[in-house]
């Protein structure tokens, strides 16, 4: 008996026959070829696998496929069509917030949700929101700057 797991993925309704006990991150990367979601640790510590689950940042390595049933999932591939992404990625570029880039998609997922929920986060709020996204290259300050820059430029984006 194969069960279908259905959910919304980047705005589309999808179903998969895969086993419920696969990690969501593996299903996204291997089955749906959405390799923008990275695995940095597989234990919920680094945030490289960040997705939005019903709009909220969630760790896709710390979640079974079965738990995605009927949920709404957005990955970087879905986010990159948005205006918000355009503002954020330009700000990441301008602030020099991207070095090796392995943390970047996760950082963008997290900060996108932050800017949606908080129109004007200060330095402390930005850092608090990012506390689950490790970056080994930048020392964070240039990422915080990028997010502040996006706040200034956001206009009516979110």
């Amino acid at each position, binding site marked *: 008996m194969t069960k279908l797991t259905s959910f919304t993925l980047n705005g589309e309704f999808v179903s998969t026959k895969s086993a419920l006990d696969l990690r969501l991150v593996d299903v996204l990367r291997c089955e749906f070829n959405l*390799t923008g979601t990275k695995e940095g640790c597989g234990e919920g510590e680094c945030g490289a696998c960040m997705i939005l689950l019903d709009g909220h940042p969630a760790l896709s390595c710390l979640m079974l496929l079965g738990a995605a049933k009927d949920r709404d999932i957005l990955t970087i591939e879905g986010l990159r069509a948005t205006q918000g992404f355009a503002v954020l990625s330009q700000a990441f570029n301008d602030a020099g917030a991207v070095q*090796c880039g392995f943390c*970047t*998609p996760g950082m963008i997922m997290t900060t996108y949700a932050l800017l949606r929920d908080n129109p004007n986060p200060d330095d402390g709020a930005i850092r608090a929101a990012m506390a689950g996204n490790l970056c*080994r290259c930048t*020392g*964070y300050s240039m990422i915080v700057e990028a997010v502040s820059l996006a706040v200034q430029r956001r206009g009516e984006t979110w």
Partner: protein
Amino acid sequence: MPFSKDEDRIDTIGKCCGTTRYVGDLSFDNMLEAVTVRSTVRRGKIKKISLPEMPDGYFCVDASDIPHQNQVTYFQDTCPYFAESEVKYIAQPIMLMVGPDLRKVRRLAQKVQIDYEEIPAIHTLDEALEGTKPPMHNDDNVYFKEDFSYGDIDGAFAGSDEIFETQTRTGYQEHLYLETQGVVAVPETGKMTVYASTQGPHAIRKALGGAFGCDEEYFRIQQMPLGGGFGGKIETPFFLAGHAAFAASKCKQPVRLIYSREEDLLATTKRHPSRIVIRSALDAKGNILGVDIDVVFQAGGYALSCRMVLDTGLKKATGVYHFPAARVLGRAVATNNPMAGAYRGFGGPQTFFAIETHMNALARKFKRDPLQFKADYFIKQGTDTLTGGKYHFHVALPETIKEAARLADYERRKKEQVQHGPILRGIGQALFSFGAPFSLGTNQPLPNRCMGLLKRKDGRVEILSELVDMGQGLHTALRKIVARALKIPIERIIYKDADTDRVPEASITGASMSVVLFGRVLKDAADKLKPRLEEPGEFSVLEKVKQPDHLQWDPVKQQGDPFHSYVWGTVIAQVEVNTLTWQVAARKIWTALDVGTPIDRRIIKGQIDGGTIQGLGYSLLESMPMDAMPASLADYIIPTSLDVPPVESALIANPYPPGPYGAKCVGEPPLIGVGPAIVDAVANACGIELFQLPVSPEYLMQKMANKS
């Protein structure tokens, strides 16, 4: 300023979009997954290996599948790809399980039963030197030993009124690049391509040639974008590339080998732990007559590049000082621990921590202003190096001190009250230099090492170089240099990730030599290409890698100029110590750095910020107890966005004539001074001396208990 504009990095947008493909994102038809079977004991003889029943299409790959020799030929010392008869550290690779379904492969790997005859293991560098356990290497466990001296050091001690001694210790540091190690090996007709997250594509190709006993041209190494390196993707990738290639060659199918974070923590190289004793001979007035430095670096089960790391660490051991006499002795010792290897700073963070902590403690002992106290011994232009060479160019150390002190308002803050309720506040400083690149031979061209420019039909110019952009912005920096030399827009300069079939061998990317040395090579190539730029067709200009003319170095006697150029710097750190919990929080860090001519200030800021925070982790958080190696990021703690203070930095313009447009390097230096500056700040806040990194709350509490 020749480079007034910061250039956008072409890699940024793909990284933001998630379209940049790292090695783990690759997939091929019929690809097999590989899992490494590892030792579970620290030291022992392998008695027996029992394999599970292997289903169809699943393979086990071990030393017997290596076509020629089970030795990573890149290294001078023994270093097998797979353990055969004995294991020397926990998580040493013994074999690979390979097959189409990763879960099944893991299950098979789990079922391999290995019986060992355990041998008492050497846990620490102290045990290695005590000799109470059966030695691992020769009789004395010393992989490599070296010493340098100048002046009459014995006379200095004989004539001294007092001897001041400090012993500093530092632990392992894991690189913790966010992307774990990985390769994919793909057999093709008459060829094998290895896609790798590596800092040294050509070095891997050579090593594979050695292991397979075939022409290295059989292999093509395609370097994939690195999710961080920091020196950690120099040595370990040799093993992965070998393992995957042996498997691919046996199975005749593509093989993907990606480490889990647990494997990466347990099995890859780390920064060498150290124990450094410094003794100063002092006269009655507290002047230093001579300094005797005994450096021990803890290497792991195999030596890897401990010679080079120790060697460069030793050549920096006297810090930014020239004492009347000095002796430096260094040993790298064998222990049954994970292998230590290259890491941002390359021996410097340990030796600078030792010398700066020693000097700061001496200044406190004599109640002298530390910067004034240290100034008596500063290196200046024309001063001799430890190895009898010269500091040929202007030493901008005093300018960095002045600038850092100005930024930090150091003189005022130093006098501020320490106690604020339960918080003790302190400020500290450290001075450092960073010599790079290390000298290799005399100033002859290095054989068979070159870089070049390919003028393409479409008028664009491609940089032919194996140097790797691991996030540090190297491609952009080198493109800027070439664009400037050719006087064409940077958009016309192309730089692709290295493919050993297309680009010549130059060097592993590391030791901060990419801009200062190879940037110069590319500039020279560009100067040659410039007059021919309008010629039709496609052609290339190759330039041999050559050391600068001023350099005098005798590699046999180890005498002369040990490094091409020196970056000078000052770090000031302000910390707060919470007396309730003995937690230390860095409040702000200021750095002034002489990087020669800055090529791109935004990229340099990225290196300063990132290096400083990696240094902060090393100073306060990151620890790997030898008996409880962390297997998880829950236990190996690196700074989060909430743990880091703002970093304010300034650059001192001190162009280095042989560098491209006067540029030096910036990758490694920012990390070097952070440890001693933090320790100085904590010492000033608490009124005690500290000699260990990291400054954990447990260590600080114990020190404070001893004080009262």
